[in-house]
């Protein structure tokens, strides 16, 4: 399961935390939570939505705990950024834009970016498919505006 979802879950960690070491810690927490919950997987949902449910619940609790401990987050500039790698700058800009969204919008957007359908997002979040569709189209527009705004400023 980690072979399949390892990369998407690492990307999810980046949405919740900005420090690379903390992202790794969170990923390990998620991996452990999935591993321990695996015997209780009832298959009443797909493996993917089940894994994302656990990942989001662990990430929410973990990031809240970290905020309480630190009371402040590291600035975005501390992200490891290697402009030599193609697409890295764009990805960081997208991540920056995602970080500026409200928590609930962040959940929806990251699931959409990972390619989950509205129905799957509804299963993960507990929201209705209709409300997700409306919200996501607004968020996509907002992200596009944010990214365009950055490009225009350059």
């Amino acid at each position, binding site marked *: 399961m980690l072979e399949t979802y390892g990369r998407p879950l690492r990307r999810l960690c980046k949405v919740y935390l900005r420090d690379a070491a903390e992202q790794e810690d969170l990923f390990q927490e998620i991996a452990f939570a999935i591993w321990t919950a695996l015997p209780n997987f009832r298959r009443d949902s797909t493996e993917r939505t089940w894994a994302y449910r656990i990942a989001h619940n662990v990430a929410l609790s973990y990031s809240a705990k970290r905020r309480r401990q630190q009371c402040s987050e590291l600035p975005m500039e501390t992200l490891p950024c290697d402009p030599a790698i193609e697409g890295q700058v764009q990805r960081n800009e997208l991540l920056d834009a995602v970080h500026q969204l409200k928590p609930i919008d962040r959940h929806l957007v990251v699931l959409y970016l990972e390619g989950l359908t509205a129905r799957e997002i509804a299963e993960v979040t*507990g929201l209705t498919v209709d409300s997700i569709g409306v919200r996501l189209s607004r968020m996509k527009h907002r992200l*596009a505006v944010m990214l365009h705004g950055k490009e225009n400023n350059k």
Partner: protein
Amino acid sequence: MTPLQNEPDDLQKVWRGDDRTPTAVGHLMMLKLVQEKRRSLQDFLRGEDLTSYTIAVAFAPLTAFAIWKSRPVFLMQLGFLLMTVTLVVGAVVTWINQHRGSALRQMDLSVREYQAQLLRFLDQRIRFSKGVKYWYATPLFLGFSLAIYPIASHFLPLFWSLLLIIAMFVLLEYLTWRMHDVQRVKDLQRRKDEVQSLLRDMNGLE
């Protein structure tokens, strides 16, 4: 993929472009490392949460023994009895409270269900922390005051011994209030506000 598309759109392509796996450690090895880390963390948390048990285990036999030893002084005996009962009740109530918290280990609920469950749990913890001074600290310190009053009154005049006991009782109550009602409840309340805000946003989407 969007709900209507099969091919990733531009945003999704940018997002998923970062497919490098940064760690060289195999997944199995990583899980073993996490397990070890988790075990030490759980030990730490257990140690932190079980203060009540530790106090009960350390002091309850002593106070129980003191009940028997202080037979000639009724007030002292009553004080030690009150302390023993409070310590044992405190350990039991803490255990029940922790047992309730284990419901949060079900991580595969939807985000909304999990947050609603977390909110109920936080409410319970806040009530528990606020109530500690009434059902635990007050009888414990009252028992302690009763137990040491005969000693104080033996060395000091009645007025000063009463004053000393009352001052000590008030100080201990104040420290408990600072520790539970102020610091702990503040932390829990902050977490509760975050959960409430997320749930409010989720409800607002419907």
